[in-house]
């Protein structure tokens, strides 16, 4: 067999001519991949789509909540009567503080209406002192309940992002491992370890991992971001609850 030895020389500074595309086109790889690889990619695509839907929805929801909270707090601090604030509430209903205020206001109203007075009790004289609260603790509990409801509402669907972040890399990894298994089988069948046999299968398999990471990375980022936002809202709600209790105590006891 004649020795093959070839030599190529490049002229210094010679311009590199544009050549046609070489290398591996992953779309062609995908077209030839197995049903399992395709379904893994489809699952990852669905996870990505749903998690992005949640991301967009939550961004929109939190932005609206923050804007309405600002308006609500301005109105609340300017007004002198809870009934005025209550009238404004429907226009700023996206704010979690509105839920707390309405809950507290309902509790106050029910206590101040004094339905428990015996019917034969003497009517309070005119110019009598203001109606008083029987239990400030009951108001506090109503506010706490409202806070729980509002936080739950803000957190709704966010855990799906955590799920996406943790399982999509594994789904992708599963697709990759399966594809590499197929590649090794191919080596056995063809009896050749040449790169031409192995490389396309592995490249194809690695697409699954890439897709898994593609779905997971935004989910991780936005899960942390949203958790932080919910904490901020919860702090604002606690603050508002205390403010509401203070006002109630000052005015109704």
């Amino acid at each position, binding site marked *: 067999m004649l020795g093959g030895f070839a030599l*190529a020389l490049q002229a210094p500074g010679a311009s590199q001519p544009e050549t046609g595309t070489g290398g591996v086109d992953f779309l062609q790889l995908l077209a030839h991949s197995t049903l399992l690889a395709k379904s893994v990619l489809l699952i990852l695509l669905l996870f990505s789509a749903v998690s992005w839907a949640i991301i967009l929805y939550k961004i929109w929801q939190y932005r609206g909540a923050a804007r309405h909270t600002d308006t609500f707090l301005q109105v609340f601090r300017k007004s002198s009567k809870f009934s005025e604030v209550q009238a404004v509430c429907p226009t700023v209903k996206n704010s979690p503080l509105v839920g707390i205020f309405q809950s507290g206001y309902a509790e106050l109203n029910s206590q101040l209406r004094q339905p428990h007075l015996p019917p034969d009790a003497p009517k309070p004289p005119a110019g009598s002192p203001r109606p008083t609260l029987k239990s400030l603790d009951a108001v506090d509990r109503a506010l706490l309940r409202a806070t729980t409801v509002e936080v739950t509402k803000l957190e709704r669907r966010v855990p799906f992002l955590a799920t996406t972040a943790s399982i999509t890399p594994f789904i992708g990894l599963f697709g990759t491992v399966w594809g590499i298994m197929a590649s090794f089988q191919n080596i056995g069948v063809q009896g050749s370890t040449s790169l031409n046999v192995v490389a396309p299968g592995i490249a194809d398999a690695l697409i699954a991992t890439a897709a898994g990471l593609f779905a997971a990375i935004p989910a991780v980022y936005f899960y942390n971001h949203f958790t932080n936002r919910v904490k901020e809202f919860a702090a604002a709600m606690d603050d508002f609850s205390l403010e509401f209790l203070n006002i109630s105590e000052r005015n109704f006891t």
Partner: protein
Amino acid sequence: MMQEAATQVLIDRSREADGIAATVVLSLAAHAAIIAAIVMMPASWRSHRAETPRTIMISLGGAPGPRQGMTPMSTRPVQEVAAAPKNAPLVPPAAKAPEMVEPLKTAKPQPKAADKVEKPLKQPASKPVTGPEIKSGAARIETGGQATPFGGLATAGGGAGAAYTDLQNFCCPEYLAAMTQIIKRNWQQHQTLDGTVVMKFTIQRDGTIVDVGVEKPNAMFLNMASQRAITDTKRLPPLPAAFTEDHLTIHLVFQYKR
């Protein structure tokens, strides 16, 4: 009535519809758009472009390459350096007596016939061709062409020594021949695999080899064998004076046989 005053408010608040359906549709549309964009975009954006350097290919074995020559005409070979021309008188060769003449029984040999014997043709290859320097070539006459040990019509075709080039202005093919010979000595061609590795390296003006790298890799140990062949060749002859650049980048193709 067991219901707390605040309960109805809380139930109403928690039942408010959220607008997730709209964003699901939006997100699905965005994903579909991205996938469509990936499918529609030019194939060259998705895949790595394999750049083919502009090269001279010289093959010292295997199948002959395409028949294309750097110079279609080769040069006249010179086997001996010419001595200074002397003004020696040209002496015609002596006429030889014809051999094997059938004897004439009746007639005497005619002496005049001897004068008519043709002079033998001078054979051009009988004497070494002389010139200002020794060089190889295949032309019978002086063409003024560049001596191309691997190139040109004279050597195209055939198993060993097939050559094809597409670089037009490298001055000194003899240097490449010397270089390949030296590297070939350090090269272990027979491996357990067939395959081709292209190595790239640079020869400095003084003949040292720098920047050795694998340009088109193959199996790991073929890459290593190629690299070893070059790095074991620690030094090459200095670049020829006719080559004016201070370094020369070489792409060397190693074809392995089992």
